[in-house]
């Protein structure tokens, strides 16, 4: 009998794990954006002294994990599990980062939804009594993602207005069975939603139905309403997706216009930084959570947040084969207090 399940897709954690520390490392462009005062480390050069962008991404993730552990006054050998993922083939950045850390490692792929996927699993593992301390982390890198999913960097192609800019950065969160919050109190696991969008330059549109499904399911399962949250924030739907979500949620009977935004809208100043629709990538939700949301919760400016990271589960091969883009969204509730 699964006592912690409520509704059809949600788990109510009975011993909510505490987010005892976070760390965020971002590239120079992100560090020039509106959230620049929140990040722990802003790199001057996105190669960070490495030979390749892939190596740089692994280093960014590894350093973010180390920094988060250090911020919690812990050492890596006190961490029982590492849950991490990234966008590259076979999630190599995460594997190489975990190689140095010697923490038992679960590698995850949920595309840009990986941050809440890792936090969902980490939180349930702790709540279930299988671990006391876990780290959840994700990373992405503009230049490594660009060549895998789009064109070489020096290729002279124009980016459509619906395209998004992959975040260079990593976020890491240490979860602990003890601590003073903020706590992860609910986990709503998403179902794949695919409305037949095939345009990889419009990922926001492909992921909106998944976000809507997860958010409405979360409200139905928990009995909460949008007003119960200080902030409802999706992963990387960007500007087009954000407006579509607001519009379609209204049709579902939920008005989110007062307290909803999207991580992909917050990271860059789209006009000044020429990022078109906004940000995307595993690092997008990860750094917004680790930097902005976490700090605002500690300050008490936000007390209850619903974070719904969204992922587009396509590959360059599936796009070439004209397959549509399956969307996924996982939601977690972060509370400053437990009832």
């Amino acid at each position, binding site marked *: 009998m699964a006592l912690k399940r409520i509704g059809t897709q949600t788990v109510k954690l009975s011993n909510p794990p505490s987010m005892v520390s976070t760390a965020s490392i971002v590239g120079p462009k992100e560090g020039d954006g509106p959230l620049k005062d929140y990040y722990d480390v802003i790199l001057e050069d996105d190669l960070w002294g490495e*030979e*390749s962008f*892939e190596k740089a991404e692994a280093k960014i993730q590894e350093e973010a994990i180390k920094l988060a552990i250090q911020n919690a006054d812990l050492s890596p050998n006190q961490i029982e599990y590492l849950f991490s993922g990234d966008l590259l083939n076979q999630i190599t950045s995460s594997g190489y980062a975990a190689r140095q850390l010697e923490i038992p490692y679960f590698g995850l792929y949920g595309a840009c939804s990986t941050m809440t996927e890792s936090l969902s699993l980490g939180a349930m593992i702790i709540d279930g009594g299988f671990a006391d301390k876990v780290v959840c982390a994700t990373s992405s890198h503009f230049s490594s993602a660009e*060549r895998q999913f789009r*064109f*070489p*960097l*020096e*290729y*002279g*192609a*124009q*980016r*459509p*207005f*619906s395209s998004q800019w992959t975040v260079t950065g990593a976020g890491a969160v240490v979860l602990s069975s003890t601590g003073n919050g903020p706590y992860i109190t609910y986990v709503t696991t998403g179902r794949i*939603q695919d*409305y*037949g*969008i095939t345009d990889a330059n*419009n990922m926001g*549109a492909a992921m909106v*139905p998944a976000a*809507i*499904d997860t958010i409405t399911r979360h409200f139905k399962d928990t009995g909460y309403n949008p007003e119960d949250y200080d902030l409802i924030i999706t992963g990387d739907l960007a500007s*087009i997706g954000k*407006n*579509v979500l607001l519009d*379609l949620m209204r*049709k*579902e009977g939920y008005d989110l216009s007062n307290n909803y935004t999207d991580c992909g809208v917050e990271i860059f100043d789209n006009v000044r930084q020429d990022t078109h629709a906004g940000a995307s990538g595993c690092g997008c939700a990860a750094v917004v959570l680790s930097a902005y949301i976490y700090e605002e919760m500690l300050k008490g400016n936000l007390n209850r947040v619903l974070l719904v990271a969204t992922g587009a589960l396509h590959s360059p091969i599936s796009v070439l084969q004209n397959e549509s883009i399956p969307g996924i969204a996982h939601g977690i509730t972060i509370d400053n207090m437990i009832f």
Partner: protein
Amino acid sequence: MEKMSNKEYQKYIEERIPKPTYAKNMIFAFIVGGSICVFGQIIGNILSRYGLDKEKVASGTSILLVLTGAFLTGIGVYDKIGKVGGAGAAIPITGFANSLVSPAMEFKREGFIFGVASKMFNIAGPVLVYGVGSSVVVGILYIVLAGGG
């Protein structure tokens, strides 16, 4: 979302995608593309002045334009020209050079055989396949039609 079918959703999204700035893109494509062609004309005229015959001028111009495109790609300028000029930067033969050099540079870290040399034709390969292939078809058709008639 249950009320919406896939088709309805796709149509709904299509209406919400911001349209490209058509006029601005066309003007820049015209200026950038036209300028590259003028540059080609200048090269051709200089080569003619040195007494090269028509065929050598044509080949020499191609070679020098390809060199220019490759060089501008290498120093990281051609992607910026492409961003402004769009098709104006893609269609001239300098754009062909860009499509060849950019993946070659990018994949250098995968080695000089399976990286540089094999990835070089990632984007430009189809141009050679369809260009050379169709030219042979044209040549053979010419023989068939001329021989028959």
